[in-house]
């Protein structure tokens, strides 16, 4: 072949490219496929370093994931506190027994209510006399001072402070009802604790997200330094920053992706380890409480989060490196 070769500009790069790749999309996909392969290769080349980074990300993601599981289970635990969501209705004194029983039945028809029971003034008096020492004193009263009472158990779907308060409001408006009362303290405390854990989980999640970005960033930074020659030569022969950056970003995404998978494994392992202990505890309470692990959606979220954090961390690291290189 003669030197004519390099003068043969009949097929200029751009003119030729459209013909070869057909469409812009095909070219785009090809560029990304190559960068992805390249990124995966670099990820594998990291060997032990890559494994360690993946595990660090895995651990970091496991903590918020585990807290999420705790919160979810605690919220699930709330309905078990059913006794705390009983509403006591004190009825006007001079209402007939007949009317009160009808009212109790009517209330039971409401969708928020799972059960009602009626305590007549006589029953209440007997119970009172049995349980307290001043019971005898009541014998000296000419009249039974106790009002009829309806106990309303709220359906477990309608728990939560706001719901209970609303139901309380509605029931207290009913004719015949004098006072409606609920002991919300238990529920409030439980919800308060759950909320506290949630806030802690949020805070920890933010910290650990920053940590993951930094871990990926640091790894990609070291990686890009070890590819210094390649980056420099590529830039000298006309590579765009994007071309240089892309494989590293894919490497970073692989770190995050595998870190996410590791964190799922850790979380599933921890929940199944705790499951037997929870089962023992639940048995003591004669409850069928089951520990709920990560759902499918949670797992997918973990992987996506890991991948996105890998993307962010590597983007920052490579962009900074390219900026410093200033080629």
């Amino acid at each position, binding site marked *: 072949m003669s030197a004519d070769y390099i003068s043969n500009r009949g097929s200029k*790069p751009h003119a030729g490219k459209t013909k070869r790749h057909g469409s812009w999309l095909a070219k785009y996909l090809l560029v990304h496929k*190559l960068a992805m392969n390249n990124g995966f290769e670099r990820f594998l080349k990291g060997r032990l370093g890559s494994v360690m980074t993946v595990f660090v990300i895995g651990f970091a993601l496991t903590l918020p994931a585990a807290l999420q599981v705790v919160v979810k289970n605690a919220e699930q635990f709330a309905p078990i506190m059913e006794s705390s969501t009983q509403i006591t209705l004190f009825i006007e004194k001079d209402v007939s027994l007949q009317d009160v029983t009808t009212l109790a039945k009517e209330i039971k028809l409401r969708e928020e209510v799972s059960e009602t029971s009626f305590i007549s003034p006589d029953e209440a008096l007997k119970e009172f006399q049995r349980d307290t020492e001043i019971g005898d004193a009541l014998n000296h009263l000419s009249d039974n001072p106790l009002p009829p009472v309806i106990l309303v158990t709220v359906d477990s779907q309608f728990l939560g402070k706001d719901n209970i308060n609303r139901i309380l409001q509605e029931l207290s408006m009913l004719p015949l009802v004098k006072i409606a009362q609920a002991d919300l303290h238990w529920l409030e405390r439980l919800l308060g604790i759950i909320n506290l854990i949630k806030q802690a989980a949020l805070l920890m999640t933010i910290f650990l997200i920053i940590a993951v970005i930094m871990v990926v960033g640091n790894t990609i930074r070291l990686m890009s330094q070890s590819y210094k020659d390649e980056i420099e030569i590529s830039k000298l022969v006309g590579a765009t920053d994007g*071309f240089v950056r892309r494989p590293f970003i894919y490497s970073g995404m692989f770190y995050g992706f595998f870190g996410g998978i590791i964190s799922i494994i850790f979380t599933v392992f921890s929940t199944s380890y705790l499951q037997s202990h929870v089962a023992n505890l639940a048995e003591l309470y004669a409850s069928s409480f089951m520990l709920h692990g990560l759902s499918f959606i949670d797992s997918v979220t973990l992987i996506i989060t890991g991948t996105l954090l890998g993307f962010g961390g590597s983007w920052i690291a490579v962009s900074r490196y390219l900026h410093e290189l200033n080629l």
Partner: protein
Amino acid sequence: MIQFDHVRKKYPGGHEALKDVSFYLSKGEMAFLTGHSGAGKTTLLKLIALIETASSGHVLFEQQNVLHIPLRKVPLLRRKIGVIFQNPMLLGDRSVFQNVALPLLVSGYSGPEISRRVRASLDQVGLLSREKANPVTLSGGEQQRVSIARAIVSKPKVILADEPTGNLDPHLSREIMDLFVRFNSVGVTTLIATHDLELIKPLPFRHLELNAGCMNETQTTS
């Protein structure tokens, strides 16, 4: 093609590599950039490929002031220029073929087009049989030829070479020079920095002499 107009380059730290450089290189011309070491030859070449930027004055490439090229368009400029360094700058973890293919990869070529062009380019420098070799197993002269193949693979309009024969014996140096002459004969604008005056004496091309960072060659264009 390439024009320098009172170009000055001062590095941070105070070293003034180029004081006042003016010259013009027309399309398809070949010239040698001479001057002793430290005269600023490398700096001058770097200004053309925008590896460095001038402190003052104008550097024009195809009538365009390179300083006005936005950062994201710099790669497009570099794709028009084949650069060869004294050190071949090959990647030791890849084959000769992959090294030569790099400029095509960065420009978005793929598959058969890459193979065709890389082979044609390696054939030009007489290394087609070594395409699978690792560059570190090649001799100095062969490595430099690989880097030349890499510089011409994307059919650049301009070849810039910085002491391409610096590490080679006279016989190999002449071979490399002959390659450049051949490329130039098909219309590639070529600028070669060298301090080896013996080597270029028999060649009928203009000498642009850098003297302590100064040059004024605007009047002599061929």
